[in-house]
């Protein structure tokens, strides 16, 4: 079956020639009209639109945005904060950077609509430190929007006021985790907080109710306010509404960002047709479907079971190529859609080396609060690096599994799972490569293969 057409809503103007990131260009394309409309409606009506839309968070967890907003403690009398998570640091994910650089006003409009809906008077954009230009572009865009009365005091004469400030990170991945982010914004180390009691919706920034949403999620809110929640829910598939941006990287002919109605494209269509298939002379070997912490899939494996389609239970029997790219299908087969980062590896890749690369990331990025995560991520890195660069042993695979299995469920934040899943899934799917590594590594490799660690 041929791949469906892209449907670019959020990415409509990305890489469009002649489109620039200034206010004039945004206004020429109908910019801020949705905000003008939105501020004439009761805030609760906007929250209801988002609930009806079924929008799920695009930052990683896929949590329904309307439900999140519904959990906000509105009776405490404390101010409610909104934080835009622009930390984009999950390996394999590269959509927010384009939105920030090329269409910052779309983000600001979505943010202001969300702030108005939730009676927020102060928003922060937490942007990773490695986006210095992005921070400048956003700063300029906010200044333009303020001058045009879309941000700041008495917005569009409504009496409603809201400020946005930019807060730059400084190179720590854990600032993407929402409670770590909040600590960081408070001027401390980004140590994630324990939940309960520190759910941001109740005890977030300065112990006040706080909404944290991803850049892309807030861009979707703008379109929900524009077309209505029901119309939005008709895009995509049930429980997986709207469009999804896939960031494809690694061993394909045409890596990049592609936007499709969620669940309408399969992994095979995405990689073979949209991205042009494997590099010349190579074959696909493995794919990580939702950012580097998502569990890896092996080309050739099959997934069987039953799933709900509408009210019915139907059998499914999928190869990797057949997987519908939506939150629920990927969760059903034991991995996740996560942040939309699809990392492809072909048959030139040695899986021990690939895992060693990933493990080095997690060992570097653990915040260090929880012993299982801090020590476990370090040992997984040391073991896999030693397998590649030092003496590999037959028993390393079992030892690795033992370390990884002791982390999930025993930590403060989901980084614990995120750092263990790669090791667990690489071992489950490519166990033989790990068990035999001490022998296979003796065989000289073709010189064309890239070093991974």
């Amino acid at each position, binding site marked *: 079956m041929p791949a469906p057409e892209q449907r670019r809503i959020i990415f409509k103007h990305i890489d469009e020639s002649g489109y620039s990131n200034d206010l004039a260009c945004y206004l020429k394309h109908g910019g801020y009209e949705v905000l003008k409309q939105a501020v004439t409606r009761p805030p609760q009506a906007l929250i209801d639109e988002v609930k009806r839309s079924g929008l799920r968070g695009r930052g990683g967890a896929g949590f329904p945005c309307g439900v999140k907003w519904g959990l906000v403690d509105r009776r405490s009398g404390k101010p409610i904060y909104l934080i835009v998570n622009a930390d984009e640091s999950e390996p394999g994910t590269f959509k927010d950077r384009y939105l920030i650089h090329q269409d910052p006003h779309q983000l600001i409009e979505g943010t202001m609509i969300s702030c108005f809906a939730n009676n927020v008077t102060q928003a922060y954009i937490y942007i990773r430190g490695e986006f210095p230009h992005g921070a400048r572009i956003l700063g300029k865009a906010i200044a333009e929007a303020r001058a045009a009365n879309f941000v700041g005091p008495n917005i569009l004469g409504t009496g409603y006021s809201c400020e946005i400030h930019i807060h730059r990170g400084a190179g720590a991945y854990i600032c993407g985790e929402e409670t770590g982010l909040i600590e960081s914004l408070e*001027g401390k180390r980004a140590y994630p907080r324990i939940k309960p009691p520190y759910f941001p919706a109740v005890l977030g920034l300065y112990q006040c109710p706080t909404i944290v949403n991803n850049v892309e999620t807030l861009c979707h809110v703008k379109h929900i306010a524009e077309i209505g929640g029901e119309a939005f829910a008709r895009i995509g598939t049930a429980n997986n509404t709207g469009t999804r941006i896939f960031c494809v990287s690694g061993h394909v002919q045409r890596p990049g960002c592609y936007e499709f109605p969620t669940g309408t494209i399969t992994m095979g269509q995405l990689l073979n047709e949209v991205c042009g298939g494997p590099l010349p002379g190579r074959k696909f070997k493995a794919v990580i479907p939702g950012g580097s912490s998502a569990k890896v899939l092996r080309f050739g494996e099959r997934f069987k079971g039953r799933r709900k389609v509408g009210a019915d239970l139907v059998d499914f029997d999928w190869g990797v190529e057949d997987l519908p790219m939506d939150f629920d299908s990927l969760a059903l087969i034991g991995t996740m859609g996560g942040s939309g980062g699809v990392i492809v590896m072909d048959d030139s890749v040695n899986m021990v080396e690939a895992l060693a690369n990933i493990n080095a990331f997690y060992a570097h990025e653990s915040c260090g609060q929880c012993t299982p995560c801090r020590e476990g991520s370090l040992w997984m890195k040391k073991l896999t690096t030693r397998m590649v660069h030092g003496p590999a042993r037959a028993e390393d695979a079992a030892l690795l599994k033992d370390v990884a299995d002791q982390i999930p469920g025993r930590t403060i934040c989901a980084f614990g799972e995120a750092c263990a899943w790669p090791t667990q899934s690489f071992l489950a799917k490519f166990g033989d490569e790990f068990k035999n590594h001490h022998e296979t590594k003796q065989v000289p490799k073709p010189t064309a293969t890239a070093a991974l660690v």
Partner: protein
Amino acid sequence: MNLKPETLIKIDEVITHYPEKRSAMMPLLHLIQEEVGYIPEEAITWVAEKLGLQPINVYEVVTFYPMFRRQPIGRRHIKVCRTLSCALRGGYQICEKFEQEFNTHRGAVSPDGEVTVEFVECLASCGTAPVVMVDDDLHEQVDGAKAQQIADRIKAEARQR
């Protein structure tokens, strides 16, 4: 602590962005590092005083975030992405190339003081891997030839100084 008047103005302005002064910690450290090149010892006490905190509160932040440095680096900062998507496309070779070009190794200042080459983690540009940041600028799809160009330009700019 001797900071330029423009920096001091920015510092006072940014503190007003937050209901609690402590939140201005990272913005202040960024501003100081942009001017001085790193976070010297005196900056730690200075920031603490400015924000009504103890020096330890600043120290623990400086030592947590990889972008804050306690030592000066080379005049130019070359940051090569190390993470998987870039590595799959040759990021490690690109890093070695820069090390050779500037006769240095990762994390160290080159003997002429010109550059610091470093590995960093995913720069959110995996679709155009491998990527390299030179100071604030991102370079995409950096193959051997492009790395050579980047190195040549840095050397040419150094000669002009």
